[in-house]
């Protein structure tokens, strides 16, 4: 399992958790991580809420 923080040290925390039987599948490209960071920002802007933590869990 590997955790990719989307806002290191920030509150509330946002992160991507990846779980897999194979080590190679734990890798996520930096570009995709950037997309997820933007996704959290867009969702907070859409709902006018910045107090919701986010855990994105991938099973690959």
């Amino acid at each position, binding site marked *: 399992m590997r955790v990719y923080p989307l806002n290191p040290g920030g509150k509330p925390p946002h992160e991507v958790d990846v779980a897999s039987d194979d080590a190679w599948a734990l890798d996520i490209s930096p570009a995709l991580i*950037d997309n997820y960071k*933007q996704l959290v920002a867009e969702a907070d802007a*859409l709902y006018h*809420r910045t107090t919701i933590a986010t855990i994105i869990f*991938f099973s690959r």
Partner: protein
Amino acid sequence: MKARRPRGRTHASSTRVLACSNRDCFLTNFHIPGTDNTGALAAWPLPDFQAPMKGELLWVYEGLTEYLGTVLSARSGLTTPQQTRDYIALTASTMAHRAGRRWRSLQKNNAKNMHAARFCIFRRQNGLLTGGASIFIRRAS
């Protein structure tokens, strides 16, 4: 793997927990906590699993969820603008040729779907999801 859709009081959680290996599924679930702010789902959370579902506005909730999931995917760069436009066009075109909605409203469809939802939510809701989404697509276009 299909993500299990959180239901009932889970929606009031202050943490978005998303589990899936499918992008569409992920984006659909991402919208869920914000929906509570609209009050549209005020009647949906249940005190326990013995209480009957009240799903009168579920088509609104599911449709808005589906539509905003598409919007968020485009705004975050997970899909390109062209992919997003193609998806919306496909959904609208599909619903334009789905005859079932001419004799059965989304609201009537909800009641049976909600009873079935506890046991096979994704299987039975598929038409409901796209039906609700198509309405928001039309309103936004």
